[in-house]
């Protein structure tokens, strides 16, 4: 995909080193995303800089939009102030995510890497810290969780051996989570919620590993089938 289609990320931290370190971590999983640091004050002390935030937003914005991640409270104040000074058309495509800095930046960067739109990247960031509760909030109430008769039903599962070189890391993990999120039923990968990007990546599954995709919800059979097919297809890496 063209660079201009991807959402950019800005990491606002009181510490220059912290911003750089978080970006190093996120870039490992999202090498093609513009992730710009705004760490420390103008002269490199601990603090946040209006100028650095403004500059970073400009550098991260390729036209599709920017998601800003912040560490402590005054970083948010600085980011909000910088947003006030942006041109109206730019401000419309900049969001400050309410998310923990490290988890939020990684989740947002991976979502941006796989081409999610602005609101999708924000959602990825904001669901990164809360154990996937934001994902559940998107599910219609009547279908959230296992249905009454489903909890006593037989688990439905498929076993797949990962064939793609990255395993369930970064982009493949993001694709899996994105697909899982289109189904209201709870589906697990080796017992882990398939809608939680960071939890899936934390499994550390690599090429050759066997994964079990399962649900206890009888209505979730087609979700398991779809996720298994995606994994078996090698996430398009063949």
């Amino acid at each position: 995909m063209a660079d201009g289609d991807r959402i950019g990320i800005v990491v606002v931290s009181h510490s220059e080193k912290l911003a750089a370190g978080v970006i190093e971590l996120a870039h490992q999983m999202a090498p093609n995303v513009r992730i710009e640091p705004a760490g420390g004050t103008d002269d490199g002390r601990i603090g946040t800089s209006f100028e650095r935030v403004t500059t970073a937003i400009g550098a991260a914005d390729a036209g599709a939009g920017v998601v800003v991640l912040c560490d402590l409270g005054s970083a948010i104040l600085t980011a909000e102030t910088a947003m006030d000074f942006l041109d109206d058309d730019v401000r419309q495509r900049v969001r400050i995510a309410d998310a923990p800095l490290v988890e939020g930046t990684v989740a947002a960067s991976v979502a941006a890497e796989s081409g999610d739109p602005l609101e999708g990247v924000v959602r990825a960031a904001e669901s990164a810290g809360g154990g996937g509760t934001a994902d559940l909030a998107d599910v219609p109430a009547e279908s959230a969780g296992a249905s009454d008769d489903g909890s006593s039903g037989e688990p439905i599962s498929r076993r797949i051996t990962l064939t793609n070189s990255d395993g369930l890391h970064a982009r493949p993990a993001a694709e899996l989570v994105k697909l899982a999120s289109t189904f209201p039923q709870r589906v697990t990968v080796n017992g882990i919620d398939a809608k939680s990007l960071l939890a899936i990546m934390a499994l550390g599954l690599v090429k050759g590993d066997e994964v079990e995709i399962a649900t206890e919800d009888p209505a979730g059979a087609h979700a398991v089938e779809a996720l298994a097919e995606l994994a078996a297809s090698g996430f398009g890496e063949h």
Partner: protein
Amino acid sequence: MGPIGAAAVGLDITWAVDWVRRSADSMAEHRIELITLDREIGDGDHGENMDRGFQAVLPKLDDLPAGSTPADVLKMVATTLISTVGGAAGPLYGTAYLKGSVAIAGEASIDASGVVSFLEASRDGIVARGKAESGDKTMVDAWTPAVDAARSAADGGASAAATLRAAADAAASGAVATEPLVARKGRASYLGERSAGHRDPGAQSTAYLLEAAAAAASNGTSA
């Protein structure tokens, strides 16, 4: 001073520039005190940040174009503080001066009701930015009493200078009144109950800045 002189007394560009110079002096003078207050319940940078911010403002006073209004001066202060004060105080004071300057935009001379408008818009800007309420142990606890005192002074027919004096005194009392409070916003909120017993540094710097405003105004009227 005769009645004509008294009637002509509004707060003009001379006042605004004098306020900024006095603010810079005050932040330099109280730098250590504000650092000490902030070290007790925060990260200890407030005095240094405010001093650096106002020192950066000073040279820009010489570059003001002819015909500048008080609002122009305060807007310049706002953008400079936002750029140079690293902590939360930069965005908060910057927003205050910015919103305040909008409330008095274009006016060459500010009367008592203009003072109230300025203070109220500044306070509202801080509240909108920091989302703190009265009693959270923040600078709002100095600003809101200042706004209230200014409004009742102006309603009672006080001059612009007397209105600012009322605001400054109320801000000073408000800062003292933050001492027993438990912080609910800002870095001090991490301390919980342990934040009680210390004066909030942001409320104290607010008191100093409004004191500088009032002193600049009374200097003008007695000249």
